[in-house]
């Protein structure tokens, strides 16, 4: 049996404690030069896609600014468009929420990115986690969890209807007959559902991919079902082998249940990489980095994410707090994706870990938040990546490191070539569009303009 080809993306070091901004090697996380370096490096490695996360609320802790992490993040569309100009093959994936955006604007922006980049746009659909983010927007934090996914589904249906509203052959531009458009219905759309009642004419011609690639990130059953029904790929944080396998099986079963071929949906966990010339050197380097990622104060704050209350009176070198979490209280740390769906269960498991291993609070947090899944020599890391993929724990990874923007360099220079040598990763881009490079089928209605008024999504 032939070996699976690995999908590889690159994340930009995030707005969280994993990014060690105080590292002497760290550059700006906002300047174009940083994004450009990162993008060119990823393309040099022939990676499939660049991946940007999104956060629309500055983090606060209680009433205070939460500034031990990197703070601030520029607009995804603008960054990706600027990167389209300095790259030519790599995919450009943006995390954009479906809760606070309108389908018309989303369709327009992603179609434009697809046109400008020659077919490299991808949308990571998220529903965004918190009401505080909603306060930035006209309707505020008005959607409960269930409705957020209803809206996500209707948004995607509407956006796809808009992307289909121009046929591939809509533009004739024939000077001899003076005809610009093939027919008078180009761009017509009408979408009615519980969340939307919109109709009009769409302005952007169909992009090279027909539909930009759809990614999803969200772990609840509703999120998994949404992905199973709609996504081309899933961004996950299940990085340990067993949990990754379990997630893979769960999602692929949902994909089949949704009436799709399980092979159509790629599962891509994020993975941080720490390299060394020897295993011992890599482990030592990782220990140093991890010590800076989870410093004593960060350990308290991460525990507060679970407990949803002020734990500053607790000693990070003391035991895991014995007080109970208060998930029902007003959100203590705002603007950060929740770490758990069940605070009490998570607190209990932390206490168990601490007890079983004799760990302090900080050591427990370090144990739980060990995001650097791949630590070792380049050969070892390549082995591990290949093992996960061939054993169906995932279909590839979105890789990164704790340093922006140069952290990716050694991964591209030392790990990726080993995978290419083994024949499990490309040595050059196969095709022009991201969809083609990922081996995805063209969208079902490719090139076909749907009849007006048929895009009803009401359930």
């Amino acid at each position, binding site marked *: 049996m032939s070996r699976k080809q690995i999908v590889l993306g690159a994340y930009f070091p995030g707005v969280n404690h994993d990014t060690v901004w105080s590292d002497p090697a760290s550059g700006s996380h*906002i300047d174009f030069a940083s994004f450009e370096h990162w993008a060119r490096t990823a393309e040099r490695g022939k990676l499939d896609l660049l991946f940007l996360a999104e956060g629309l609320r500055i983090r606060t802790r209680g009433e205070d600014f939460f500034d031990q992490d990197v703070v*601030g*993040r*520029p*607009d995804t569309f603008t960054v990706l468009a600027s990167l389209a100009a300095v790259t030519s093959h790599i995919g450009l994936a943006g995390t954009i929420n479906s809760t606070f955006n309108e389908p018309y604007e989303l369709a327009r922006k992603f179609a434009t990115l697809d046109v400008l980049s020659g077919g490299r746009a991808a949308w990571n659909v998220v529903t965004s986690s918190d009401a505080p983010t909603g306060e930035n927007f006209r309707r505020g934090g008005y959607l409960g969890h269930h409705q957020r996914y209803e809206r996500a589904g209707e948004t995607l249906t509407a956006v796809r209807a808009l992307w289909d509203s121009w046929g591939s052959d809509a533009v004739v531009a024939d000077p001899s007959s*003076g005809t610009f458009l093939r027919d008078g219905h180009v761009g017509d759309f009408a979408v009615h559902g519980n969340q939307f009642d919109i109709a009009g004419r769409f302005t952007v011609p169909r992009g090279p991919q027909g539909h930009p690639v759809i990614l999803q990130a969200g772990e609840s059953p509703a999120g998994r079902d949404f992905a199973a029904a709609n996504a081309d790929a899933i961004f996950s944080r299940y990085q340990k082998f067993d949990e990754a396998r379990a997630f893979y099986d769960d999602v692929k079963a949902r994909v089949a249940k949704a009436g799709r071929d399980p092979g159509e949906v790629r599962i891509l966990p994020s993975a941080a990489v720490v390299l060394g010339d020897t295993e011992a050197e890599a482990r030592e380097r990782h220990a140093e980095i991890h010590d800076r990622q989870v410093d004593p104060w960060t350990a308290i704050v991460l525990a507060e994410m679970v407990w949803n209350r002020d734990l500053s009176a607790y000693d990070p070198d003391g035991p895991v707090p014995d007080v109970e979490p208060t998930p029902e209280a007003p959100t203590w740390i705002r603007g950060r994706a929740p770490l758990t769906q069940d605070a009490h269960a998570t607190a209990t498991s932390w206490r168990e870990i601490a007890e079983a291993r004799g760990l302090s609070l900080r050591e427990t947090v370090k144990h739980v938040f060990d995001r650097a899944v791949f630590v070792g020599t380049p050969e070892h890391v390549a082995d591990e990546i290949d093992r996960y993929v061939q054993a169906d724990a995932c279909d590839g990874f979105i890789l990164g490191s704790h340093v922006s923007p140069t952290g990716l360099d050694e991964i591209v220079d030392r790990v990726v070539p080993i995978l290419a040598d083994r024949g499990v990763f490309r040595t050059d881009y196969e095709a022009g569009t991201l969809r083609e490079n990922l081996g995805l089928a063209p969208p079902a209605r490719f090139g076909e303009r749907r009849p007006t008024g048929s895009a009803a999504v009401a359930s």
Partner: protein
Amino acid sequence: MPRPPQGQLLVVSLGHGDEPYRLAARGADVLCVTPHDVDEARGIVERVREIEAEVERHDEASAATRGPLEPLRVLADLVVLLAPTQDEADERLARLDAIDPLTSDAAVLATTPSALADLLVAWQEAGLDGYRLRPAVLPTDLDRIVDGLVPALQQRGAFRTAYVGSTLRERFGLPRPTSRYATAGSSA
């Protein structure tokens, strides 16, 4: 996002009468207008200055720290169609008109690069700060603006030969506004 390099981005608006002039006077940095000759340009600029004086240009939060706002920079919008000779310019315009008459809110000037350079210099006397040129045909007229008009203006000492300053505000001679949230001791 941290405060961007310009502090406040350049705000440009197009106006064809008192109401939009008033809007611009309240909040814009640059106003584009559509005169059809130098006398109309002079009239428009005078009217804009009157309205600026009338409107208390309030940018409430920053007024206290920043003092009076800069006067609006007034640019004339012009549709330009260029050719090496006047006859060729007339011919090009006639050809376009035959397909679909070229109409615009702005004046349409079919002329040569050097005649256009003379006209732009002459209209400045009406109090205009500059022009926003709309090439009639892309890329033809943009090429002719860059390769013909710009050197002609440079010869007349009326246009830069290199960029000075890096931000767009600097190009318009506009300062970086102080942040309304700046406090003593913090940088703006």
